[in-house]
């Protein structure tokens, strides 16, 4: 029965996300289309109970599911033709797995299964969850509102009730669906993000290289742990990476709908963790670079900026300023968390140094993140010493890695509560998919892949 419910919810999520892709006129290969649709669908689900709450509509199971179905139908008013097209493509596409992909795929499936089981079986553990989004979701199901009796409890020890409602909403939906601990939506995000990444790697790399890179990525110890322990950072890193993927697609295709999608995905990442807005602003520098040498620099830069930043800004205002500052029955303003001494940059350098020395290059690097950072650096150095010119996409991904590298200490400088051992450690999850996609576009691995493909095809 739980499997059936997951499939039904998955279909609903797929339809919702697919509707958005069709509205944006973004047509992708079937596998990418399906994985991206499900991921976007989950994000839309996570907004619906939040909007119902803002409108003071009781969060009954009927209200929640009826709203989901209505939103799904409204988004798919014009999708009929595209659904048929997708089915046709599926019918006529040759889905083949080569023998040499199997060792990687089997291992990935095994590792993923273990994660799914733990996600389903074990109740939520992280304190940040049980003292905030989870307890609110639990009582929202009982009391039909997110402003529930939890706010009458002594909350002197925590500020987790002021976290964005992304997790709370998904927990409500999945608890209503019959999962007492909710959570399994995280497994759906995990699976479809892996599918998306594997496809993204396979576009440029030979399947053997894509396979081993996937194994390296999935076995980042700390990141793997958060594929079954629900918190904000894993989902945040997924949508942040997807946003950049479509931003860089926009750079190469110049299709406006790609940057709109990128902006929407960045808004989702901001909804999950509000400080992502800071990273979005840093990433926006790449848009400036993109238009730098154009004759008409200002107009497209501002227009792209609006597409890329405004959705995030809007969701920030809605989920933080409106919901947390004004709507919740407590006095809590984000501004009070800001660094009071912004002219002193010492904390920025200190955090940059601690993050690099203790998390990324030495200290606990191997313990937390395995060898992934070293492999990335190895590929980067080899690429540079090999005098291979980095292509534009690789440069973009490298810039994205740099944006997170600089951005996290900058967030810590702005918000001193953003500590090293928890927030920064998990914030670094955002850097790994970017490193992976840099490697997927590194000229060294591409040329190695081409050689293998050539050898494979010669008789």
């Amino acid at each position, binding site marked *: 029965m739980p499997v059936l419910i997951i499939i039904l919810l998955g279909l609903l999520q797929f339809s919702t996300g697919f509707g958005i892709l069709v509205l944006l006129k973004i047509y992708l290969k079937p596998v990418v289309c399906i994985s991206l649709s499900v991921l976007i669908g989950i994000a839309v689900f996570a907004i619906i109970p939040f909007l119902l709450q803002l409108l003071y509509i009781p969060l009954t199971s009927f209200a929640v599911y009826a709203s989901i179905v209505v939103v799904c139908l409204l988004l798919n008013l014009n999708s009929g033709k595209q659904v048929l097209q997708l089915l046709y493509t599926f019918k006529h596409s040759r889905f083949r797995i080569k023998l040499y992909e199997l060792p990687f795929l089997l291992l990935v499936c095994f590792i993923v299964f273990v994660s799914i089981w733990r996600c389903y079986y074990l109740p939520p*553990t992280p304190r940040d969850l049980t003292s905030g989004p989870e307890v609110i979701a639990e009582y929202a199901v009982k009391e039909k509102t997110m402003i529930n009796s939890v706010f009458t409890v*002594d909350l002197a020890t925590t500020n987790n009730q002021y976290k964005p409602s992304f997790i709370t909403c998904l927990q409500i939906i999945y608890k209503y669906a019959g999962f007492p601990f909710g959570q399994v939506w995280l497994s759906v995000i995990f699976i479809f993000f892996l599918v998306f990444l594997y496809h993204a790697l396979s576009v440029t790399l030979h399947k053997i290289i894509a396979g081993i890179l996937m194994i390296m990525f999935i076995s980042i110890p700390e990141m793997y742990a958060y594929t079954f322990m629900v918190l904000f950072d894993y989902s945040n890193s997924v949508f942040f990476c997807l946003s950049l993927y479509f931003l860089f697609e926009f750079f190469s295709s110049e299709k406006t709908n790609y940057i709109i999608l990128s902006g929407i995905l960045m808004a989702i990442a901001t909804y999950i963790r509000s400080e992502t807005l800071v990273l979005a602003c840093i990433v926006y520098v790449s848009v400036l670079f993109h238009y730098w040498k154009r004759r008409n620099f200002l107009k497209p830069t501002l227009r792209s900026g609006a597409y890329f930043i405004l959705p995030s800004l809007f969701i920030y205002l809605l989920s933080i300023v409106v919901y947390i500052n004004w709507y919740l029955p407590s006095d809590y303003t984000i501004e009070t968390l800001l660094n009071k001494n912004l002219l002193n940059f010492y904390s920025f350098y200190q955090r940059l140094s601690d993050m690099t020395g203790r998390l990324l290059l030495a200290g606990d690097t191997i313990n937390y993140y395995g060898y992934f950072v070293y492999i990335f650096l190895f590929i980067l150095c080899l690429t540079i010493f090999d005098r291979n010119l980095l292509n534009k996409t690789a440069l973009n991904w490298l810039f994205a890695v740099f944006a997170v590298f600089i951005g996290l200490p900058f967030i810590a400088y702005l918000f001193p509560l953003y500590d090293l051992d928890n927030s920064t450690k998990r914030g670094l999850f955002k850097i790994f998919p970017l490193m992976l996609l840099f490697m997927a576009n590194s000229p060294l691995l591409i040329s190695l892949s081409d050689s293998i493909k050539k050898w494979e095809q010669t008789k």
Partner: protein
Amino acid sequence: MKKTIVLTFISISLLYLFSQFPRNQKWFTERIVSYWDDFNTQKNRLSIEERKKKRWGPSYTVSKEIAGFFAKNGNMKNALVLIPPSAYFKERGVDYDVPEPAVFYYYTGLKTTWVNSPVASNAGWMVIAGKGHYQIIPVTDKKVLTDSINIFKKYPLDL
């Protein structure tokens, strides 16, 4: 076909090489293999309560016992219970990692408070411990409550 077999051999070799790195080996043994072993026992133990007890340990079971006392007496909704820090219980031989009030409420539906809170002085009940057991007592005298809070404050609070 020959080339496919060669490439398959390379795939397996790459995985073998990857598994030889000490951290990867440790992660796979301590996490994946161990979690797989857990799965083999967990798949036959699906009761929700059992899963909670297993995951949250005494923090959950003792909290449920405390809440059970109030549920039995029918004053679960109105009670506010002062719970001393974990270190206090540990010193008295009680294995109880005290959950903060929000988590306690999540576990049980009972409202509690900690000694550092401004509402601690409103508690109508408190939990005290001695020689390996704990006791739930009503607050009948505000002075006793204030004195108890001052005693409990000597113990470090741990989230």
